[in-house]
């Protein structure tokens, strides 16, 4: 009944931060090139989510059934960082923030785009981290992390990003 309770107040024309994050992730996949071997043995683009949050729900409904470059997007929900082997994009939900370091360990050397919504995610070694500022959702890109995963990020994406570079990308520190 919450939908209808809120709608009694006539809330209209409103977008949530999590819907924007989900739409961003769809766009990330459009503007990022994975190395050939990551895409070779599967016909789909695998989005994996670690943990649950409203953003994960939004990704579920917004992105499923869509395709990028003729690759259908498949969504999987993981319980542990060790399961990320076949993923192209891994999203770490805020509620699973404690698994951040384990995720970086598990992803070392793998061609996986790591996206997170916890504060400082990109600084700590993730590839892209979301932040909300002045009511707008922005994202930070850690280019060392992207290089280590052999991901090519289009300049169109970088133009709108805040660039972060940590020399300690993915060392789990």
């Amino acid at each position: 009944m919450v939908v209808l309770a809120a709608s009694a107040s006539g809330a209209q024309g409103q977008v949530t931060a999590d819907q924007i994050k989900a739409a961003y992730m769809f766009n990330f996949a459009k503007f990022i090139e994975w190395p050939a071997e990551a895409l070779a043995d599967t016909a789909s683009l695998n989005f994996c989510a670690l943990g649950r949050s409203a953003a994960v729900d939004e990704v579920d409904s917004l992105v499923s059934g869509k395709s990028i470059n003729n690759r259908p997007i498949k969504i999987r929900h993981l319980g542990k960082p060790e399961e990320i082997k076949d993923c192209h994009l891994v999203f770490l939900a805020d509620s699973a923030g404690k698994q951040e370091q384990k995720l970086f360990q598990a992803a070392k050397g793998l061609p996986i785009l790591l996206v997170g919504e916890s504060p400082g995610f990109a600084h700590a070694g993730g590839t892209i981290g979301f932040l909300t500022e002045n009511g707008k959702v922005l994202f930070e890109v850690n280019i060392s992390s992207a290089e280590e995963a052999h991901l090519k990020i289009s300049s169109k994406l970088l133009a709108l990003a805040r660039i972060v570079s940590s020399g300690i990308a993915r060392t789990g520190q």
Partner: protein
Amino acid sequence: MIQIYFYSDRARRVCAWAVKGICLLLLGVLGRAQDQHPDLTQLTLEQLSKLEVTSVSRKKQQINDVAAAVYVITQQDIHSSGARNIPDLLRMVPGVDVAQITAHTWAISIRGFGDIFTDKVLVLIDGRSVYTPTTSGVYWDQQDVPLEDIDRIEVIRGPGGTVWGANAVNGVINIITKSAHDTQGGLITAGAGLNETADALLQYGGKVRKAGDYRVLGSYSNSGSQTAADGTPAADGWHNLHLGFRSDWDLSKRDTLTVQGDLLSVSEGLTVSTVLSNASFQQATFNTRVTVGAGNLLERWNRTLSDHSDISLQAYYDGYNRHDPDVPESRHTFDIDFHHHLAAGARNDIVWGLGYRVTSDDLRPGFSNLYVPQQRTDSLFSVFLQDEIRIINSLRLTLGSKLEHNAYTGLEYEPGVQLTWTPAKKHALWLSVARAIRQPSRSDVNLQVDVATFPLDNGGTGVLRITGDPDQDRRAEVLLSYQLGYRAQISKRFSFDATGFLNRYRHLQTQEPGQPFAVNPAPDMVFPLFFDDQAHARTYGGEIFATWNVTSRWRISPSYSFIHMVVNPDASSQDTTVAATVDDTPRHKFAIRSLLRLPHHLDWDVALYHVNSFLNVDTPSYNRVDTRLAWCLGETTEFSVVGQNLLSPRHAEFPDAFYVNHTLVKRSAYAKVTWRF
């Protein structure tokens, strides 16, 4: 419900259909998807980076997940129905009975108990409650919302007491108007038709620098008299004049404010049958004229506290004055409501709120009735809390309760429990157990009215007189409702929604006979009846509706509802009439609507209704056909022709109601032109 600002320019086009028609139809394929997220994947990165976040993160709150029997009347439904007023719009909703009593009065109810003053349904317009505490009913002739300004109407069948409070016993009808952002520019509509039908709307929406948007409107509507039950012309024609405005402001990145108001003037004719409570107690039938002046002013302030929390504060004033020789009344109401919505952790979605309402009335004596006391000011305090818990991904449990203190029965509570199970993406099963109450109205407790006279064998006149509730110990009516529902999207083109319910009512109103006494001058005698609360009822039934997109240009929406009602006096009661309450509720209702996009910018929409089996002999089962043919000229103009009640020249939908003589609904037609600039 969730729209993106830059779509609103396109919404200006009358013929949104011509271009977006296919998109809208396909959106509908997703099972009444109008309340779902916009497709943000269509935006560019730059557009995404400029989007402002303005509301709390919700869990995936689609209509599919709601644990309630909901039906949403969309803008598309409103546009294609050809309805001229809100009661006619509500006919399409399964489970809702709309019976026109006269040209300007309707008995609108959900799941039974329909009456000229249906007292078990809560009706809201933009959060403002429009039921009157005089009778717990709604004066539909005082509610005028231009149909072009309605964003949607959400109809919830079943108790809404937990969130909405007293009077939401059998359901809630929530009329939500468009934001001023979405009604920019000029709009003129003019229509005329058979039976003195005439409508006109003049509206303009503009901006106030960068701070906000507004719209102002003036509308006029006239309807001629219908036919009396004996075939002669009735005297119930009416007209109304409405001036209104709405403004929506972005005060800051986190704050929005809405201010809106209306002034309404109504004039209508009526044929009444009443006892004239003078020395000779005559019964008479004659025509009268009623005029109404009404106004309201409402503000609503929303503030986003964080990504996970927002609050809203709403306050409104509502006043009306009915110059009705038979039931003259005036009422002023002031209401203030606070809501806080927050997402607590990953699993809990909580809403809680506080409310205060004060209403003050002056119910002056009429031909046969008076209220004791004539004036009264009552307060209502309420607090509610609801938590939606995601137990596992596919299972949600909602617990909540409202606690109210009203001026008649004191403290009342309305708890509810709902469970939603979504075993697969496009299937949802839900069940609900809830308690709702109806607080007594002024008429239940303070009314004295002479309802009938009859000759006595001693030559005098006997008068049947209802004498309120002298002990003032009236209890609130209580409903305990069990519901089960299932929604499924079977394929890209077909979806359906089914609900079953079992309702148990206690403390329903009865009339208990008292000791007759003589009045001066003898030999007249009064036979008193006292209102009391000693009846109970059990109803069960169900509603099912489906949406079938036959092609991308043709949609069919069938629906069916049925109800079985039994009402009985308690063992301690001496009432003899309450069991006949069931006579005025139709037992089955079937409806089917077809929306067809033809080439050359033509729309053809047809609706067929079959309302079956009133037990009341005055109102036989009837069929009704409404149809609309519309033609778009360019992007600014639309012509339409509407026929209503095409199947028979006239039919009755409801019997006489209290003092009001019912009239027959006539076959009618009208033409309308809409111009946007």
